[in-house]
């Protein structure tokens, strides 16, 4: 039964990925716009080369990207290359493959956005749980208040504020970039510290922007759970406050938060685009932003597809994880 369920989930996962990739494939082609023509048209208008050669160049690039083939053949080629995990070649950063580009950007996105999302989740839920726990000391319960207030401030605004005061005026931390200009990425401690220094401000902006949401939702859950009979009965059993908090209260209040957490992780790229831009970090968000800017449609599809797969995979993971967290959910 268990195995069957896993296979079922993986089948649906593949179905979602296939559907998403098909939609990603057809939508731009319905519009009958040719990105190659547009790109070279732009170049020609700015006086790059003679219009006479333009058609030939466009023709050769169309051939290179397979845009001259009939639609069904383009589609089978596309699905075929996807099956080989080949996302194609970037038009703008030719001849780099989309896979390579994602590979290069991914560590930065994971390093900043995934880490801060996890940190926010832990900090926010712990503070929210404590804020709703009547036995916690008052100062501890109020610790979450500033974060809730910061919820009203968009992370971007906070980021600009941090950049201006801490990086620009006080010069405590670097203004942007993933690492100091002139250093070559390597595996030394020095370089690691340099990278870390560059991550402090964007990480602060991200965490302050998202902790408040976790605090509020967890606090709401906590208020419901602490009135449950099993929390009361745990007290009747003579358990210590800490055991009740950990095993009876937090454990149950956290359940719906896990789903929200997976969704937040899936949305990491879209919620981080502006922060990555603002701080000049070469993550997936920046990759997508540049691809859109330069109409590099192969990269756009690659990134969108990658995000789709990441979200779908996370959902499968959560669905398989959930029965372990909540035994009431089985089939």
């Amino acid at each position, binding site marked *: 039964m268990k195995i069957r369920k896993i296979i079922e989930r993986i089948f649906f996962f593949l179905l979602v990925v296939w559907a998403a990739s098909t939609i990603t494939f057809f939508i731009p082609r319905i519009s009958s716009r040719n990105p190659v023509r547009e790109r070279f048209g732009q170049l020609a208008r700015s006086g790059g080369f003679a219009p006479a050669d333009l058609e030939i160049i466009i023709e050769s690039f169309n051939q290179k990207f397979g845009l001259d083939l009939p639609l069904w053949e383009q589609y089978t080629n596309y699905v075929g290359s996807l099956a080989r995990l080949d996302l194609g070649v970037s038009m703008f950063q030719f001849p780099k493959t989309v896979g390579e580009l994602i590979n290069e950007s991914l560590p930065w996105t994971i390093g900043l956005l995934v880490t801060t999302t996890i940190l926010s989740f832990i900090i926010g839920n712990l503070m929210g749980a404590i804020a709703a726990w*009547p036995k916690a000391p008052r100062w501890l319960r109020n610790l979450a208040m500033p974060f809730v207030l910061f919820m009203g401030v968009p992370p971007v605004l906070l980021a600009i504020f941090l950049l201006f005061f801490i990086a620009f005026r006080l010069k405590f931390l670097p203004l942007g970039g993933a690492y100091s200009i002139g250093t070559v990425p390597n595996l030394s401690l020095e370089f690691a510290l340099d990278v870390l220094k560059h991550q402090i401000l964007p990480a602060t902006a991200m965490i302050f922007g998202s902790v408040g949401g976790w605090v509020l939702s967890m606090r709401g859950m906590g208020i419901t759970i602490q009135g*449950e*009979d*099993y929390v*009361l*009965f*745990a*007290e*009747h*059993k*003579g*358990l*210590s406050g800490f*055991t009740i908090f950990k*095993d*009876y209260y937090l*454990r*149950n209040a956290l*359940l719906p938060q896990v789903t929200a957490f997976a969704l937040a992780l899936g949305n990491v790229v879209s919620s981080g685009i502006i922060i990555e831009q603002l701080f000049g970090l070469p993550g997936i968000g920046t990759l997508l932003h540049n691809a859109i800017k330069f109409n590099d449609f192969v990269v756009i599809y690659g990134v969108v597809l990658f995000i789709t797969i990441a979200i779908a995979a996370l959902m499968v993971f959560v669905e398989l994880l959930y029965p372990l*967290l*909540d*035994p*009431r959910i089985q089939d």
Partner: protein
Amino acid sequence: MEPALKINNLQVSYYTDAGRARALDGVNLTLNPGEKLGLVGESGSGKSTMALAMMRMIKPPGRIEGGEVIIGDVNLTTLSEEDMLKARLSRIAYIPQGAMNSLNPVTRIGAQMVDAIKAHDTGMSKKEIIEKSMESLESVDLKREVFKMYPHELSGGMKQRVCIAIGILLEPQVIVADEPTSALDVITQRQVMETIDKVQDKLGAAIILIGHDMGLMAQFVDRVAVMYTGRLMEVSSVKDMFTRPKHPYAVDLIHSLPNLENKGVFKGIPGVAPALLRLPSGCSFHPRCSQAIEICQKDTPPYQEIEDNRFAACHLFQEKA
């Protein structure tokens, strides 16, 4: 015989914005080992408050303001917070009302028994703790396998049995059962009550059964205590209470029970129970009492022995004391 439980002049108040509500006003009660006492009264009369006060689990804005709860030779009211944690379950155990939801849905029954024992200094090894838990399950007629199950895999009656099994884990001297069968069908009710009866016999513990169900009380308990507005009105043996109740409130309460001879005729008590914030002067029952005399409006009647082993708080029986 040394009493298992002695409650002396127990006082509990809730402080609300509208003022102080005396939820428990000078309750006195003595229970012998192995005795079963039924605590009855209308909703809001202070039954559950009394259970919570005995466990010292009254939460703000409520407060225990005076009196003593003595179990064996230990005065619970003077224990430190930490010692009180240890006293729960080992001296006085509570069997909850909402058995359906009283078990943590995400952990196994076993874990919820083991953590209860571990919270007390029993000096038992892990193996002994598990064995003890399984024995406890067996003593409430559940299989040992229940130890490894989750609450959602059990029926309502089984969950209530698990709660009883947890309650008797550390062999308490006093068990407080707060409407333990209110959510169960009559067949299961009977089985659960028989189980409570059986484990109580084995432990020799005193039991306080809180509830509304007079039929259940009549079958199960030795003595009945009638509570009204946080005061005990009458405490008598179950036979005396049902055949010749003394206190006018107890009389009305017994007579309001439907019986087959007068089918279709409901006899209630006129009026409604007063709010605790605005209690009438004197005896709190006097506005609804058919036998009220002048003094009832002025003085609160003392709670005293009116016959052998019968206690009541009523001016009508003053002189007999």
